[in-house]
């Protein structure tokens, strides 16, 4: 999808790329891994188009006189008081977390059942990278056997993440957790003191519960019917040919994926777990010795997939890539790849 700034952007293409790669560290052990989303949005994404069906681009303008702004004319600011902003650039944000930018730092191991599910936010599969297969399997084996989860933190793109690393089926998964102060308590919400309840009332409700007990969660219950209907409508309309705009050649060429066939996330994950580097992985690392004893992190020198946006931006600047400041991280990586 060319316009990654679009609200409605979702798309399978984005999720098949590694979300990030870093190094799990605990004690003195380092295990390089790549992170892949374990959740994929199945929300039907729609694009914003002109009345004629041309996909629209988001552009920025000055607030006073509505003059168009180039992305070079846009800076980032934090509002310290109404109308007063402090400018902050990417470089400063990166420098706030130098020692942790690559490390998924395991701080403790806990009983996996001890983490309140209310804290779970999103899951990522961790796949072994850079010769970490053995250390990866070792950690997964031990954690699964002992029923332990690793609690770790890492910083990525302007945000610190707290995760519970869970081993299941020989596979490591990082569940991002909300920080304690991100969750309200009933008192924060202002819920009233519990009222007195007549036992007969509880009994009446309990009877209704009893009538509706199920042994297992039926996946059919989790179907999004309206999304299905929308998809059906769109597919039918495409078949009828009414209101269909064929892609124009130029745009097709401009697409970020360069016409690469859409790879299913499942396929990518299966290959990564098996140690096969996928097309989306542009890492220059050599095919690693599967059972290598090297447990330390690879030097991430020229690795586009691992580079931060700021790093990519710097390289784009050196290569004098036009329009670089308007690009997303992925767009920068693609542009560098093309000019190389």
């Amino acid at each position: 999808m060319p316009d990654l700034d679009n609200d409605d952007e979702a798309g399978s293409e984005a999720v098949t790329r590694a979300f990030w790669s870093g190094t799990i560290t605990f004690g003195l052990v380092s295990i390089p891994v790549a992170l892949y989303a374990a959740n994929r949005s199945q929300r039907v994404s729609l694009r914003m188009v002109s009345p004629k069906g041309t996909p629209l681009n988001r552009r920025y303008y000055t607030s006073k006189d509505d003059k168009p702004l180039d992305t070079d004319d846009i800076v980032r600011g934090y509002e310290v008081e109404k109308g007063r902003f402090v400018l902050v650039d990417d470089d400063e944000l990166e420098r706030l977390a130098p020692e942790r930018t690559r490390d998924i730092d395991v701080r403790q191991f806990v009983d996996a059942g001890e983490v309140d599910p209310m804290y779970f936010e999103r899951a990522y599969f961790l796949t072994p990278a850079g010769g970490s297969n053995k250390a990866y399997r070792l950690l997964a084996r031990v954690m699964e056997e002992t029923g332990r989860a690793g609690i770790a933190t890492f910083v990525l793109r302007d945000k610190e993440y707290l995760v519970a690393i869970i081993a299941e089926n020989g596979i490591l998964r990082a569940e991002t957790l909300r920080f304690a102060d991100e969750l309200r308590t009933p008192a924060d919400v202002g819920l009233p003191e519990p009222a007195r309840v007549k036992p007969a009332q509880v009994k009446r409700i309990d009877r209704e519960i009893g009538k509706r007990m199920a042994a297992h969660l039926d996946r059919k219950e989790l179907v999004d019917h309206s999304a299905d209907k929308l998809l059906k409508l769109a597919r039918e309309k495409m078949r009828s040919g009414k209101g269909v705009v064929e892609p124009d050649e130029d745009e097709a060429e401009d697409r970020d994926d360069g016409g690469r066939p859409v790879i299913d996330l499942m396929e990518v994950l299966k290959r990564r777990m098996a140690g096969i580097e996928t097309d989306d992985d542009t890492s220059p690392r050599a095919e690693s010795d599967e059972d290598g004893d090297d447990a330390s992190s690879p030097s991430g020198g020229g690795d586009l997939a691992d580079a931060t946006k700021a790093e990519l931006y710097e390289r784009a600047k050196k290569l004098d890539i036009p329009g670089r400041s308007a690009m997303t991280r992925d767009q920068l990586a693609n542009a560098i790849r093309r000019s190389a």
Partner: protein
Amino acid sequence: MGARAIWKANLRIGEVDVPVKLYSAVQDRAVHFRMLDAKRHQPVKQHMVDPDTGKVVESERIGRAWEGDEGQLVILEREELEKVLPKPSRDIEITHFLAPEEISHQWYDRPYYLGPDEEEDEAYFALAQALQKRKVEGLARWVMRDKEYVGALRAEGDYLMLITLRHAGEVIPASALPAPKGRELDPREVSMARQLVQSMEDEFDIATYHDEYRERVLELVQAKAAGKVVKFPKAAPKKTDVSLADVLERSVAAVQKERKRA
């Protein structure tokens, strides 16, 4: 100060109606930056622009299109989109009850508190008690602001919590993936790794973890606002390469030493 209810609803279990209010259990703590015009340091405005004409398209004239696999766009008219919207309703229907372990937390998306209606709070607290006694969770379905939701209804102490669930197909189970394979692991290394994991074991108290990075970002902007010089933390030196067995052994020793000291 309490939070504002985001929705009023009627929770329904068969013949029993429980009037409730929905509150977000999550509060946004993220540091938000604004995009500013570099010259005047004023927030920017956004418009959608037609790349063919270079002109701004007003929001009333913006259409929606679905993108097919080969990049074809299917324009969907407003009336068509309205037809597929779920029917608005105030009901949260509880269809089933299950043992909590039947709803894997991998389905959990976002937690909400349910609060009682001021006038009629007995049914609310009775339901929380009934759920606690039976140790079950309810499976809920509702439509809120034109979106369809499935959720898990649970007792959180004396109160009710509703956690929205991801839809079918949105979660990839670990069981669907092959585990990384390789030569049989060395039993000595397995036992050392076990020792290392055990030595780092501790009770979990999430409140001891802070978003330190967020705190540093706030310090940075405050220091800059006050015109102070900002000091950045220095990077730690990189570790050197050694064998896995060595690293495990040294890690266990290091952690044990630290524990003794504590």
